[in-house]
């Protein structure tokens, strides 16, 4: 199918909206848009960060997911208590594949689930005593934990527990940071507010911990990598490029991050922001309080990596700039071989994305390096500033969808017929059953890393093995096949 014109895309949106009642139609129409690269401000074409309509299938998470699952969870040497009933922690445990090094249960706790397991009596009489007891038990059982964070689940806010006072008291008693985080799930419209609350907690309880302590020796080349969650080892694949350039990565969080790295972040010269959506708040704070500039970078695909490495080097002296060129040259043969191998197999394939955070815009470059085209993209929980950045990356007349509903997404796919969809686990099996190749782009479908030059090779391989998998030719039962299908069959067998 050829690329759609602006009118066709607009007509498609109208057609899909047709089934909704008037009120819902009016609301949803604001969240769907045809991309127009001439627009500077996304709020003129798309509305985002609004409450989802009751009755539609949204795949958003909650504030607890944003704080416990995304920002705090990967800090590996702290224990994060899911304070409240047992389910929230258990069903989100280890799902994001934030890799880390360390001995789980001894000095690192990333994949473990700690919960206060609220019962009826805790709701009736309050859970502060229980929290107090849990904090002491943790100290006894896991003395190497560097700190503890209390991640509130919904009931904590509803019954009005004072977790701050317990945290302050126990912090003194245990002589380690105890951070209360007010990330009750009902706050906000999506996980996005959870990121903000988590950032505020980091600001209030962690960032200032080493103010006035100058024992840490700094260099002019200190940087911090913030907002890389090390999914499948992403942060490691990014970090080596920065280190090869001659920069010193002082802190890396949250993926494979530690409490002391977070505390040392205000000592760096430049903050490198990977996931803008989830950590821009803390970067802004550090810029204001400590004068540390921050910049976003994109390590998906060789074109964007080279652009980002040069932009980062631009902030430093000539040696770093020369090193950046050396790093790009060093990997050139490697990534050219990847492109040469996979591009002929993937050329012209069309992709639709629907993810969260930064991926709906950052991955576009990597697909383009492989000759593929992104024809539709959208975010679960983005704000206007994310769409501002997306409009420039996406082609004209492509489809933008914010907080897309299950129904809308299926209808768009039926009409646009992309060759690949990149979205989450909740969409995966629907689209695979529809016969459309699918990659789970939240946790790289149990693969990864995808960042950096090393990650690009894996990314290209994964896309190839998904799109060109022979199973897609076996979607029709043998007795339903026409002669035309039979003619294609021997080719499939030899592929």
């Amino acid at each position: 199918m050829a690329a759609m014109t602006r009118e066709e895309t607009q007509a498609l949106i109208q057609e899909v909206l047709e089934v909704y009642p008037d009120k819902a139609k009016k609301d949803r129409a604001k969240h769907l848009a045809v991309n127009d690269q001439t627009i500077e401000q996304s709020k003129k074409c798309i509305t985002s960060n609004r409450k989802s309509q009751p009755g539609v299938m949204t795949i958003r998470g909650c504030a607890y997911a944003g704080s416990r699952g995304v920002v705090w969870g990967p800090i590996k040497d702290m224990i994060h208590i899911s304070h409240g009933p047992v389910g929230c922690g258990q069903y989100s445990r280890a799902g994001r594949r934030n890799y880390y090094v360390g001995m789980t249960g001894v000095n690192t706790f990333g994949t473990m689930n700690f919960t206060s397991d609220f019962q009826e009596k805790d709701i009736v009489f309050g859970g502060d005593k229980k929290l107090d007891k849990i904090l002491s038990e943790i100290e006894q059982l896991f003395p190497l934990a560097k700190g503890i964070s209390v991640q509130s689940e919904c009931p904590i806010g509803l019954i009005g527990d004072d977790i701050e006072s317990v945290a302050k008291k126990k912090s003194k008693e245990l002589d380690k940071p105890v951070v209360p985080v007010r990330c009750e799930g009902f706050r906000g419209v999506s996980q996005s507010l959870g990121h903000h609350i988590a950032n505020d907690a980091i600001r209030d309880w962690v960032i200032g911990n080493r103010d006035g302590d100058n024992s840490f020796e700094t260099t002019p080349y200190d940087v911090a990598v913030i907002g890389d969650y090390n999914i499948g080892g992403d942060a490691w694949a990014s970090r080596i490029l920065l280190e090869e350039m001659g920069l010193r990565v002082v802190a890396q969080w949250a993926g494979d991050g530690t409490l002391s790295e977070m505390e040392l972040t205000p000592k760096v010269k430049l903050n490198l922001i990977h996931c803008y959506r989830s950590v821009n708040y803390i970067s802004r704070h550090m810029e204001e309080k400590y004068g540390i500039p921050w910049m976003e970078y994109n390590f998906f695909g060789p074109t964007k990596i080279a652009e980002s490495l040069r932009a980062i080097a631009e902030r430093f002296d000539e040696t770093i700039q020369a090193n950046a060129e050396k790093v790009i040259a060093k990997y050139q043969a490697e990534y050219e071989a990847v492109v040469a191998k996979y591009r002929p197999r993937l050329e012209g394939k069309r992709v639709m994305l629907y993810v969260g955070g930064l991926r709906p815009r950052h991955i576009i470059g990597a697909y383009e390096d492989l000759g593929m085209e992104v024809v539709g993209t959208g975010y679960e929980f983005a704000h206007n500033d994310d769409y501002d950045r997306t409009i420039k990356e996406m082609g004209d007349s492509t489809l933008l969808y914010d907080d897309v509903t299950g129904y809308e997404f299926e209808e768009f796919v039926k009409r646009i017929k992309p060759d690949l969809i990149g979205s989450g686990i909740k969409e995966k099996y629907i689209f695979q059953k529809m016969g459309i190749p699918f990659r789970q782009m939240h946790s790289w479908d149990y693969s990864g890393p995808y960042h950096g030059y090393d990650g690009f090779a894996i990314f290209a391989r994964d896309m190839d093995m998904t799109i060109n998998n022979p199973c897609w030719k076996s979607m029709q039962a043998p007795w339903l096949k026409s002669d035309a299908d039979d003619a294609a069959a021997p080719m499939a067998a030899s592929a």
Partner: protein
Amino acid sequence: MPNVMIRKNDDGCLLFYVAKKDMEETIASVETDTADAWGGAVELTDGSRWYIEPISPPPSFPTTLRFKRAED
């Protein structure tokens, strides 16, 4: 009277960021922008107008200031 964080972007333009509203806009014009004061009526690129009593000496950016919505 929202708290507004003013910072410079890469092009040297001033950005007007309201954390509570998650709004970030470029400042189009500032009434008083001299060596010894900064403030007055501030107009953003989206057309909205805000007001702050001129601050003397001018603050160094980034910084957080309290703005008022300008009444027209």
